[in-house]
């Protein structure tokens, strides 16, 4: 969706403000949100659906709230949408509904292994033969889907060069919407700054962005 989250290229937000000796978490609730999101989200929906839930936040709230408020909002949105919790339960904190996890929660002793192994997104199924090769000129399609996409607006309609082929990866545009992983080739595409930002951009500078095959056409 063409949302406020798609920020690349905007110049209205002012200077970068840094905090010296920033703590990992600024408040107790941030720490809890981090932990419970990491543990619960994969059992409620996909990471892509989680990102899309953040994108669906009210744009003024998105801009005026902190990072872990985004996580909290998305976790609540998905818990309700997937039928796990009701808005009344979220408001009261009192459990009314039946049902829940069919498997026991992750035990603490499993944390080390889960953190170290992660959740790889490359696949050896789906579309395995890449259509493009390094050096090929490609154009990012001018797509404006109302659902989730990882094709930033600044790249749409622009011509770049395949920098490298990453392999076959889960396609977020379908995976965020319960339509399956539909793995397809993922590329790193190089765009000249001049192509993206116009004649005043520094001539030698460039930007690389990872784009799925369905975002691209030959140029």
């Amino acid at each position, binding site marked *: 969706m063409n949302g406020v989250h798609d920020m690349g290229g905007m*110049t209205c*937000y002012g200077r*970068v403000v840094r905090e010296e000796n920033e703590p990992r978490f600024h408040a107790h609730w941030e720490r809890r949100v981090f932990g419970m999101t990491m543990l619960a989200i994969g059992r409620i929906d996909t990471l892509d659906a989680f990102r899309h839930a953040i994108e669906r936040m009210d744009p003024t709230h998105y801009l005026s709230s*902190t990072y872990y408020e985004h996580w909290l909002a998305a976790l609540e949105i998905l818990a309700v949408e997937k039928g796990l919790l009701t808005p009344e339960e979220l408001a009261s904190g009192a459990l009314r509904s039946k049902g829940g996890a069919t498997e026991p929660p992750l035990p603490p002793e499993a944390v080390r292994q889960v953190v170290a192994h992660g959740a790889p997104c490359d696949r050896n199924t789906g579309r395995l033969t890449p259509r493009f090769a390094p050096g090929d000129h490609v154009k990012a399609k001018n797509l404006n889907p109302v659902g989730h996409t990882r094709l930033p607006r600044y790249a749409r309609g622009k011509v770049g060069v395949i920098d490298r082929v990453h392999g076959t990866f889960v396609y977020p545009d379908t995976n965020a919407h319960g339509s399956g992983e539909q793995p397809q080739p993922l590329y790193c595409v190089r765009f000249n700054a001049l192509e993206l930002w116009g004649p*005043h951009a520094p001539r030698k500078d460039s930007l690389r962005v990872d784009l799925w095959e369905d975002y691209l056409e030959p140029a």
Partner: protein
Amino acid sequence: MSAEPGHEHGRHNAPPDPRLEKHHSPEQTQILEERVQKLEALLVAKGLVATETLEALASTYENDIGPMNGARVVARAWTDPAYKQRLLTNATVAIDELGISGLQGEHMVVVENTPSVHNVVVCTLCSCYPWPVLGLPPTWYKMAPYRSRAAIDPRGVLHEFGVDLPESVEVRVWDSSAEIRYMVLPERPQGTAHMSEQELAKLVTRDTMIGVARVEVKS
């Protein structure tokens, strides 16, 4: 760079947007604490989250995972040319050699800064960041000013971080739009030939591996 008014990259004069300051009042913090407490209780009751596991996970990212991991990778690459070659060819495997792997670093790419190329990493669509090597991202990395301007005006952003690059240096921005996570291999500073790998690792900061700072030798 053009001298035309309004197109002077690297001279971003807009002040930080006060609407993005995002500090919570004690009352706002209290409301969030209560809301999160309710959600946590519900997720525990539903069997999705175990409190001890949440604690173990948060403490892992507070104590065990951070930029010191990436610094070890950089110092090894500076002192072992064969390792550096492996790191630039297949970063995920080379980083795993040092016992570093996992969540949000399942697919790593390391890009090298040289006298003629300077790399900067951003995620314009959300806040993707290589957790196993750098830990959880700083707030500025997750907020609108950096996410928007690192794409269109990396030199201006670098200037705010105290890094000024001549036009002869190519600036390469890497937008982490997929599940590939990027880390910068910064340049080894002059005057460090006598240093051990452990001493070198102490020089490497988080910001140098995002690409917004140079490694400096403290005098």
